């Protein structure tokens, strides 16, 4: 995989089953975000294949996109919209933002915006969560809440691939160091 003209990842291979979680570790610039973007189909693979149930997942981008809930390192929060307008009021309780449902997002703190972005992932109902540094800006209580949401998603058969610098206390994670 290339970032611009630079080869950042080579010979990467892994598999993930229903309910599985894969944590991507590595130094800054190791290619964690690039790998996540490639898995989402946002960045093309220079070589190799991404399989989903034995079929080339990127053959049909729209079908692949419909499986993925994406949390990038940016929150994708519009300051002028309220949290309820971003994800629907029903999804905000899971991340403790119900009280701020009708407040313009520009008035939220950085941590609250991150929680709003997490609420969008949870509300998506999609099978594979791709999370880039998901706990950035979160306090300890919010991290614990996020971990509970992850475990609930896994219990439903969902899969998670997350890049992280800080340890995430998830049950039986697989770790890929880049």
């Amino acid at each position, binding site marked *: 995989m290339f970032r611009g003209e630079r080869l950042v990842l080579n010979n990467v291979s892994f598999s993930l089953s229903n309910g599985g979680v894969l944590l991507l570790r590595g130094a800054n610039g190791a290619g964690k975000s690039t790998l996540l*973007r490639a898995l*989402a*189909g*946002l*960045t*093309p693979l220079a070589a190799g294949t991404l399989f989903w149930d034995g079929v080339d997942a990127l053959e049909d981008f*729209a079908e692949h*996109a*419909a499986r*993925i809930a*994406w949390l*990038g*390192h*940016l*929150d*994708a*929060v*519009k300051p*002028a*919209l309220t949290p309820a*307008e971003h994800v629907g009021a029903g999804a905000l309780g899971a991340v403790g933002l119900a009280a701020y449902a009708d407040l313009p997002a520009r008035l939220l703190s950085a941590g609250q915006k991150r929680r709003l972005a997490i609420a*969008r992932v949870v509300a998506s109902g999609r099978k594979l969560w791709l999370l880039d540094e998901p706990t950035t800006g979160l306090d300890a209580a919010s991290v614990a809440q996020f971990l509970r949401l992850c475990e609930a998603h896994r219990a439903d058969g969902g899969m998670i691939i997350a890049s992280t610098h800080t340890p995430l206390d998830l049950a039986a994670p697989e770790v890929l160091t880049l």
Partner: protein
Amino acid sequence: MIDLIWRELRLSLRHPADSAAALLFFVIAGTLFPFALGPGPTTLAAIAAGVVWVCALLAALLPLDRLFGADFEDGTLDLLLLSGLPPYAVAFAKTAAHWLTTGLPLLVISAPLAIMLRMPAGRLPLLLLTLLPGTALLSLIGTLAAAITLGARRAGVLMPLITLPLMIPTLIFGASAVTSPHPAAALYMLGAMFLGALPLAPLGAGAALRAAAE
């Protein structure tokens, strides 16, 4: 796709400055011509259609750099591409939102501007008729240019350099339809260009969005 258009309209209503700036530019630029050329009704009436068309073209360019720019900077573009909508549908929704928030208001206020420029009242319906596909073409081609220049250095400079030459045929047929004694041919050409751009511009813009996200 309807949800995305509604969301864009809601954002535009909460931040009306972009659309308002385009409309104000349109009116102010149009009112400069009588100051420069004099208030003679014959002179103004002769150039009114061209002035309205050129001012509309330039005004419609103003909000284009934020059409995808804000989404690109805050990470929303990735979500749009992963929303399940094909990239061309995302681009089409943005085009529709641009037309509704900029093209349509320009169309509406072009009538008073044309009257101020002494355009004969009988020509007004024709002006509005040409601006209907004309402003839609502006939105379609502008969206394509905005997507192509997304993430580029000096995108704000590049975008008019791409859009303006592509709009020259629209400008020629649009302005000449209003002034010509036989406007049908020019109107047909405008309609044909609109029908051609309607599928092609979103397809091109969608491909450019995918490339920008890489």
